[in-house]
């Protein structure tokens, strides 16, 4: 398989996962804000930070209201990581490699891109926005499903999955970082009902609430959610699940160089060796930072091993 095509498929996997995660984030944040009393509202600014856009967003001196933030995340020309741009990237990376995939996948991707281009202009009303994002998540799942059901599980498929799991693990750490870090002001007494709501929103943004309840019978609390989203090896959006999947995928790829595998092992060690009980605030932020850096190292190792700069 040509390295260039492997790289394109890897990025397609990443971008499509990113689009889905962005849609999840926006919808869940909207719900969360409806559930919280106005004084405790999470606002929209955290989404700017989760997506790593704080500097760019601030540079334009915008107000971090719902309209501005959502517009920025969905379709702003100044944001190269907007949902619109992400869909375009997912499609562009699929183009040259499309002959390796079932034809339906290209058609679905193209349809999704066209739909996004039509809808993501100007201001979507809140109701239409919610519906659009819900559909988008399902569309992304449909593509994943078509690949799973119709594509030979060859290296082309492996690279899509590697992109997908790296992106997903990264996004889970970002959500935990921002949500766990500053949504919980220490000086307000008797937070628990709202704390619970906030952690529930974290779970819901990852469609993890139901699964969590089945694994953890206790009421939703920070430590358990952290453990579930970081270390559970059955829930497909937990970091550990992604790492296990990556490990198996990478082991199956050709080559003598094992730097990518070593990077994954390091990540697993980091996850397993950190005490999660009571972890919040700055220490939690530091752990997430560390995971993100190690995920970036993994990306670099994958790149150098299978698609060194063309």
């Amino acid at each position, binding site marked *: 398989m040509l*390295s260039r095509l492997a790289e394109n498929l890897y990025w397609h996997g990443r971008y499509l996962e990113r689009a889905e995660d962005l849609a999840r984030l926006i919808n869940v944040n909207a719900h969360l804000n409806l559930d919280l009393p106005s004084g405790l509202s999470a606002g929209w600014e955290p989404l700017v930070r989760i997506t790593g856009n704080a500097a760019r967003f601030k540079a334009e001196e915008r107000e971090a209201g719902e309209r501005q933030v959502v517009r920025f995340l969905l379709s702003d020309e100044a944001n190269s990581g907007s949902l619109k741009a992400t869909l375009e990237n997912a499609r562009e990376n699929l183009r*040259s490699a499309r*002959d390796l995939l079932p034809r339906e996948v*290209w058609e679905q991707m193209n349809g999704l891109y066209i739909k996004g281009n039509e809808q993501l202009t100007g201001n979507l009303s809140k109701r239409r926005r919610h519906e659009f994002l819900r559909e988008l998540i399902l569309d992304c799942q449909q593509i994943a499903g078509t690949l799973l059901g119709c594509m030979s599980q060859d*290296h082309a498929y492996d690279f899509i999955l590697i992109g997908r799991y790296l992106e997903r693990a990264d996004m889970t750490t970002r959500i935990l970082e921002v949500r766990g870090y500053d949504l919980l002001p220490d000086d307000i007494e008797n937070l628990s009902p709202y704390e619970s709501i906030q952690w529930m929103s974290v779970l819901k943004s990852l469609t993890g609430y139901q699964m969590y309840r089945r694994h953890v019978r206790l009421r939703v609390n920070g430590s358990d959610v952290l453990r579930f989203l970081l270390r559970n090896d059955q829930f497909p959006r937990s970091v550990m699940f992604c790492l296990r999947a990556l490990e198996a995928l990478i082991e199956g790829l*050709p080559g003598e160089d094992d730097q990518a595998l070593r990077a994954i092992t390091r990540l697993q060690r980091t996850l397993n060796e950190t005490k999660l009980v009571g972890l919040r605030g700055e220490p939690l932020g530091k752990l997430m930072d560390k995971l993100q850096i190690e995920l970036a190292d993994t990306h670099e190792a994958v790149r150098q091993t299978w*698609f060194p700069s063309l």
Partner: protein
Amino acid sequence: MDFSDYTVGELHDELIGKGGRPRAAARALWKYLKSLDADELSERRSACEVAAMVAGITFRVYFEDTGVDRAMPFDLIPRVIALREWQQIEAGLKQRVRALNLFIDDLYNDQRVIKDGVFPAELLTGSANFREQCRGFSPPLGIWAHICGSDLVRDAEGTMYVLEDNLRIPSGVSYMLENRQVMKRVFPELFEDSGIQPVDDYASQLYDTLASLSPRPADYPSVVVLTPGMYNSAYFEHAYLAQQMGVQLVEGRDLVVDENDEVYMRTISGLEPVNVIYRRIDDDFLDPEAFRADSLLGVPGLMRAWRSGKVALANAPGAGVADDKVVYSWVPDIIRYYLGEEPLIKNVPTYRCEDPDQRAWVIERLDELVVKPANESGGYGMLIGPRSTKRERKEFAKLIEADPRNYIAQPTLALSTCPTIVPGGVGPRHIDLRPFVLSGQDTYVTNGGLTRVALKAGSLVVNSSQGGGSKDTWIVDTDR
């Protein structure tokens, strides 16, 4: 379908003879088309559109919003040629390509053709497609143009002429293949027991031709198609041919030439050797070390690898020296010189503007002639005399005087027509034909080729970039 209003006039029509009766090879088709009523016809037309969509869907969806290219309109009435006539044309094409390859090989080596006074040396110095980088080298089998697409036209008398040769990277064969697929889907009954010669083995023939060029004939050759990338207007064809041959479609950045002049492609398992490259990138962009240094599409070192015999390039760099429109006018002499034979297919009479007498003659008759620049393709930069304004002719006279070597002139041919679906029925439209000739260990000519049709009434320009469409081409055996 109603042919009662179909008038052939003074022109040669490919399906209908002077008396309004069908030609022998087209009789079955004509009877069938006449039997279709308006409803059936429109049903077939929409079936045709659907089939074309399905066959070409990759193409359409792919380019749907980028405006890089469009699907070529397809007309469902095929163009028919009798097998017996086609065999003559086939022999003529083989003769022509053989002579052209000998000519190219000679130009880059001994230049006997110049020393013997057959071909003027000045023409070579003025040739935009002569590559100094190819001097003193002869590729395997002495073949330079492995894939040739020559355009054929027929005049009012019914004589077939070669209008031009395309020896660099002729395109359009994928349309020939797809058109046949669509026709077979929409008119299956026409193909039963009809004597229509198949075209479908082109991809295997192309693969065999390419494989026969491998510098390591003992091994299973590693063949690739080299594309400038997906924004190229012919990308669909590049991808299609690679897929049909079962070989990798690569871009320049996928290939690397090492210090031993070996060519490799970069894969996830490391570097894998490449033996034969069907390149669809122009000479200029092929290798920044040898040609344009700013090319990002090419592969640094590819010319080294080619010259040291480590890799075969099809077509060979520099092959375009012989498809220059001025060289074209010498082709009959070239055939006589190398093969000692008379050309089997004629050239269109051509006036060379670098000759002062001919130039004066041409400039006097610009309103009757077609003037073409030597190195343009796709119908660009042409003057069609009878359709031109006085001002255009004046400007063209100046262009010719400024660079006479760059221009030739030909009489305006009354191109043959073929019945074509037009708004409100069926009408005659001008067509040409591009057969493809493959030269390797063996020589192969497609059964027919790509028929292009000028969809505007009276228009003589069939190029897809100028609003032309295409038709299926049937070579029909009437002697069975």
